[in-house]
C-alpha cells in the first residue's frame, strides 16, 4: 500500500512539474510579444524585408539625400537639397516600376507578399499637415495651415546662361510670410529673385525667369491646392533645387511619411501594415 502511494505521489509530482514547466514557457513567450518579435528570427526577417523594400526609397528614387531637420526656439526647419526638376527625369516611371517590381517579382522571389501603397512621390510632413509632392518637373508644398509656414528659402540653379534670359518677375510685399528666392544660371550667376513678404491667402505674382520658351516659375499663396501653397515649376529646362528650406512656426518632432508598406510572410504567419517613415527628428 505504501509503495502504491509513493508511485502515485511521484507520478502526480512529475505531472505537476511538467505542467509548471509548460506554464512557465508559455508565460515567458507571451509576456512581451514585441520583445519576443524583435528578438526572433522572424522579426529579423521582417525587419530586413522592410528595410530592403522601403528603407532607402527616398534616396533611391529621388537620387538625393534625405532632408535635414533642425529645431530652433519656436520653429522647426526642414531643409531639402539636390532635388532636380526636369521633364526628362523619369522619376515617376521609376517609382511605378519600383512599386510594380516589389509587388510582383520581389514577392515571388522571396516567397512573401509585399506591396507599397500610395507610393507616388508625395510625402506628408507630420504634425504640420503639409504634403510635399515631387513630380518630374514640379514640386508642390501644400495642405498646411496657412500660417504654419513662417519662412521659405529657395535657391535654384538652372541649366541656362544669364545671357539667354528674356524676362524675369518678382512679387511685391503683400503679407507676413518671408519668402526668399534666388535663381542662378549654370555658371552660378544670379539671374532673378528677391526677399519678399507674401500673404499665404492671396494670389501673388510669381518669382520667375524665362529663357525664351523655357521657364522657371516659383509661386506662393492661394493656388490650386489652397492657401499657403508653394509651387516650383520647371518648364523646358532642368532646375536643380540646391536649397529648399521650410520653417514651420512651431517646435515639434517632425516626421516625413511617404506611402504605406504591406508585408505578409505566410511561412512565418506574420503580417505588417505600416506607414513608411522616411525621416523623423
Amino acid at each position: 500500500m505504501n509503495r502504491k502511494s509513493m508511485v502515485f505521489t511521484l507520478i502526480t509530482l512529475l505531472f505537476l512539474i511538467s505542467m509548471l514547466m509548460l506554464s512557465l514557457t508559455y508565460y515567458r513567450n507571451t509576456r512581451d510579444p514585441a520583445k519576443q518579435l524583435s528578438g526572433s528570427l522572424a522579426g529579423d526577417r521582417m525587419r530586413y524585408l522592410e528595410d530592403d523594400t522601403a528603407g532607402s526609397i527616398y534616396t533611391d528614387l529621388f537620387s538625393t539625400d534625405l532632408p535635414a531637420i533642425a529645431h530652433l526656439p519656436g520653429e522647426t526647419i526642414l531643409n531639402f537639397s539636390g532635388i532636380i526638376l526636369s521633364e526628362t527625369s523619369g522619376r515617376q516611371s521609376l517609382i511605378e516600376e519600383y512599386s510594380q517590381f516589389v509587388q510582383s517579382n520581389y514577392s515571388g522571389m522571396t516567397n512573401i507578399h509585399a506591396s507599397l501603397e500610395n507610393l507616388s512621390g508625395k510625402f506628408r510632413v507630420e504634425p504640420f499637415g503639409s504634403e510635399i509632392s515631387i513630380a518630374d518637373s514640379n514640386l508642390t508644398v501644400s495642405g498646411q495651415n496657412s500660417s504654419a509656414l513662417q519662412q521659405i528659402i529657395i535657391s535654384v540653379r538652372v541649366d541656362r546662361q544669364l545671357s539667354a534670359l528674356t524676362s524675369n518677375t518678382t512679387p511685391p510685399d503683400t503679407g507676413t510670410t518671408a519668402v526668399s528666392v534666388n535663381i542662378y544660371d549654370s555658371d552660378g550667376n544670379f539671374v532673378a529673385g528677391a526677399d519678399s513678404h507674401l500673404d499665404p491667402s492671396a494670389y501673388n505674382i510669381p518669382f520667375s525667369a524665362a529663357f525664351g520658351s523655357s521657364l522657371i516659375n516659383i509661386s506662393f499663396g492661394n493656388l490650386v491646392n489652397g492657401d499657403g501653397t508653394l509651387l516650383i515649376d520647371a518648364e523646358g529646362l532642368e532646375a536643380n533645387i540646391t536649397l529648399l528650406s521650410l520653417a514651420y512656426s512651431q517646435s515639434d518632432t517632425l516626421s516625413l511619411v511617404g506611402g504605406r508598406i504591406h508585408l505578409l510572410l505566410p511561412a512565418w504567419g506574420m503580417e505588417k501594415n505600416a506607414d513608411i517613415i522616411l525621416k523623423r527628428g
Partner: protein
Amino acid sequence: MTPAKRNAGKIAGKKAIIFTIDAILALILGLSIILASLFYLGKASAPSQGETLQLISQDALAVMEKNGQLSESVSGATALPLESAIDMLPPNTCARLAVYSSLHEKISETLRQNCRFSEDYVLTRRLFVSEGNLYYAEMEAWYR
C-alpha cells in the same frame, strides 16, 4: 489455504499488474511532456546553421547596399567592389554574389576566393537602384 484466501490473493495479484501498467503509462506520459517542453524551450533559443547564414547574408547585403558597393558594381561595370565586400564575410563562410537587372539579366557574378560551390546554400536577395535603374543582388552562402 482456504478458498477465500486464494481468491483474495488472485485479486491482489491482478490489482498489482493493473497498478504497475498504469504507473508505467503515467511515467511515459509524464516524461514525454517534460521532454516535449525541454525541446520547445531549446528550439526557441538555438538558431540552426542555415538561419545563422541567412542572418549573415542579410547583414552583408544590407551593408553592401548602404556603402554603395552594389551601386558601384553596376555603374563602374567592375566586380571589384563585390569581391572586396564578400571578402569581409566570416572566414568560415563562402559566398557567390550575382547582380541582375530588373529584367533578370545577369550583370556580374563573383565567387569568394578559395571557395568551391556547394549545393547546400542559403539564398538572400537585396534590391537597389543605381543611376535611375532598378537591380537586385542575389547571394548564395554556405559554410566551407
